[in-house]
């Protein structure tokens, strides 16, 4: 049995999906969060059912990727019940899609979501009346709190059992977007009674957060608070964890010999395990919780609104701020999210620039080296330098590829109070990616490096990167961590200890070298996973371009910071 969830963007489909499927889909208070469909098996009263979460779309016969995915899926797959999730607070737009879905002549039922929001804003929605008129079941739902989920799925099962629920009542109108729109307005007017619309909390908050002066101050404060919070939590957790793991490693080392291959291998593996646990997770976890919170509150589109004008100067629209912000978590979803941009030129620029955004892995390098040894202000400085370089690169790319794209259009969602469960689940969802995909690579890389060092092979890597290390005045031995950094950016930090023979980096590197090394790591070639995603999304040629561009930028930025260190 197969149920599919269809609805307009930001209507709570993915939230509903996650309620039944454990946590499988990413959600956000944002248009275009889901661009591919997610499938999961769900047990409903003893029966296993396939539930599919399709990307949010306003219409079916559209041209953008989300619309195409949804449209093709509905046409080419056998579907038992379409669950049309609609946002009760925006009934008009939701019903347009509903009317289009009715034309498909498939069993269908309507889940009227955000019923709590309806009560809060004083709307009166007549669900039974709508059900009567459309001839399909309409069920109330508060997906975020899990209310109404069970009865929804039971009803869907009942529809399959009864073998009906194809509406025949609502077919007699012209099937064009404009006539559907008119019809939807008619229906909404008939079944929604607007209570008193008072100046809401939202309006008052927007007066401040979208204000020409306070808005930017607010943005700066929120981001500052965000990064300070991440740093604070990381600082709290990292040192005790490090001490703990170093104790264990010392203990184990006293039992095994470091002179033979096995001992070296065990040591390498342990270093990798420790690195993931004690160096990466302390910063990654608070970062992802914070990002999830900003996303679910609905702040990201507000950033897009405030930043559009500035983004124009680097050849992009405010909407392209999404890949950037996601990029601070991980470049891979950032590249994926460029799909929401219509123009291929804009996609290339956004993708190139978002690979320059220091992701959580690079954040770890920045915090582990620069913030730890030189202080948090230097880390902030590096982030500023990074923004400057991104802006400059954007400018140059815009000069080479002039802007012909249409302007931005983006839904501004209401503020929503995120549930702790959703935020934590989302953080866990992203951390799991690190645990499953990155951590093993990390451990493997660490072990491989230990073997290279054992057989004295590492020096060949170092020769390979010698021109770079020489140019940037870095010790020859950092060549290996740099190369392995392409695998995973954290490796550049973690392997540094192996390569230099000390984990107290301030003993083996000068402050200027620490800074230059970090700058280079931040900018040069995106990690392997990002490269793979770039190839998938933009093609091999553009991926190679991005690689060349980032190496050039890394060399320039590293060179500048070397010169600065030399002057100071």
């Amino acid at each position, binding site marked *: 049995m197969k149920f599919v969830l269809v609805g307009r963007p930001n209507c709570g489909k993915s939230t509903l999906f996650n309620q039944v499927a454990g946590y499988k889909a990413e959600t956000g208070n944002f248009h275009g969060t889901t661009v591919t469909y997610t499938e999961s098996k769900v047990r409903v009263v003893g029966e296993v059912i396939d539930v599919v979460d399709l990307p949010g779309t306003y219409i079916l016969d559209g041209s953008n990727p989300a619309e195409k995915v949804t449209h093709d899926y509905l046409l080419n797959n056998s579907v038992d019940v379409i669950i049309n999730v609609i946002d009760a607070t925006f009934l008009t737009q939701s019903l347009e899609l509903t009317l289009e879905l009715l034309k498909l002549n498939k069993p269908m039922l309507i889940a009227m979501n955000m019923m709590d929001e309806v009560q809060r804003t004083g709307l009166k929605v007549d669900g039974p009346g709508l059900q009567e008129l459309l001839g399909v079941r309409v069920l109330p739902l508060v997906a975020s709190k899990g209310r109404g989920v069970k009865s929804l799925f039971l009803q869907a099962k009942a529809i399959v059992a009864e073998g009906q629920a194809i509406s025949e009542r609502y077919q007699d109108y012209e099937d064009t977007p404009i006539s559907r729109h008119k019809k939807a307005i008619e229906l909404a007017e008939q079944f929604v009674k607007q209570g008193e619309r008072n100046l809401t909390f939202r309006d008052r908050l927007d007066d401040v957060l979208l204000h020409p002066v306070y808005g930017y101050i607010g943005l700066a404060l929120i981001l500052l608070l965000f990064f300070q919070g991440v740093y604070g939590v990381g600082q709290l957790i990292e040192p005790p964890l490090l001490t703990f793991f170093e104790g264990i490693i010392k203990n184990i080392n006293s039992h095994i010999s470091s002179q033979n291959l096995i001992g070296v291998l065990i040591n390498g593996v342990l270093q990798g395990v420790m690195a993931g646990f004690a160096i990466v997770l302390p910063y990654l976890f608070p970062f992802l919780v914070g990002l999830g919170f900003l996303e679910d509150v609905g702040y990201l589109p507000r950033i897009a609104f405030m930043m559009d004008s500035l983004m124009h100067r680097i050849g992009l629209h*405010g909407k392209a701020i999404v890949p950037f912000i996601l990029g601070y978590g991980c470049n891979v979803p950032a590249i994926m999210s460029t799909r929401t941009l219509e123009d291929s030129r804009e996609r290339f620029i956004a993708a190139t620039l978002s690979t320059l955004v220091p992701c959580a892995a690079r954040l770890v390098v920045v915090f582990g080296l620069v913030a730890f040894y030189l202080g948090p202000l230097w880390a902030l400085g590096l982030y500023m330098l990074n923004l400057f370089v991104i802006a400059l690169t954007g400018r140059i790319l815009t000069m080479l590829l002039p802007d012909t794209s249409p302007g931005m259009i983006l839904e501004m969602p209401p503020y929503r109070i995120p549930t702790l469960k959703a935020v934590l689940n989302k953080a866990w969802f992203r951390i799991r990616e690190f645990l499953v995909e990155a951590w093993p690579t990390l451990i493997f890389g660490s072990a491989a490096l230990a073997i290279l060092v054992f057989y004295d092979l590492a020096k060949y890597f170092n020769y390979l990167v010698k021109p770079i290390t020489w140019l940037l005045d870095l010790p020859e031995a950092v060549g290996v961590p740099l190369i392995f950094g392409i695998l995973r950016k954290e490796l550049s930090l973690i392997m540094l200890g192996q390569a230099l023979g000390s984990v107290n980096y301030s003993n083996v590197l000068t402050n200027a070298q620490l800074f230059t090394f970090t700058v280079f790591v931040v900018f040069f070639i995106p990690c392997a996973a990002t490269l793979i995603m770039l190839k998938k999304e933009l093609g091999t040629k553009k991926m190679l371009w991005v690689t060349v561009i980032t190496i050039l930028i890394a060399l320039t930025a590293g060179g500048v910071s070397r010169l600065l260190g030399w002057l100071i």
Partner: protein
Amino acid sequence: MRLNELDENIWVTILGFSGGEKMHERMTQHGIYPGDKTRIIRTAPLKGPFLVEVSGRELIIGRSLAKNILVELSV
């Protein structure tokens, strides 16, 4: 009259779109149609985009798009 020439908080009716088929499609994709009533809620700083209310929801619309939305004052 074009949407970008409008002051804040004045209700207008959308007459149509200039800028060809592509523009029409984009507007349709976002549920904006001729006949809809709309107003500019606020304008982003630094000559940024508009925040626009269309049938009860809020949309960010860039200046170059707003230029292609033809409107007339609602009575």
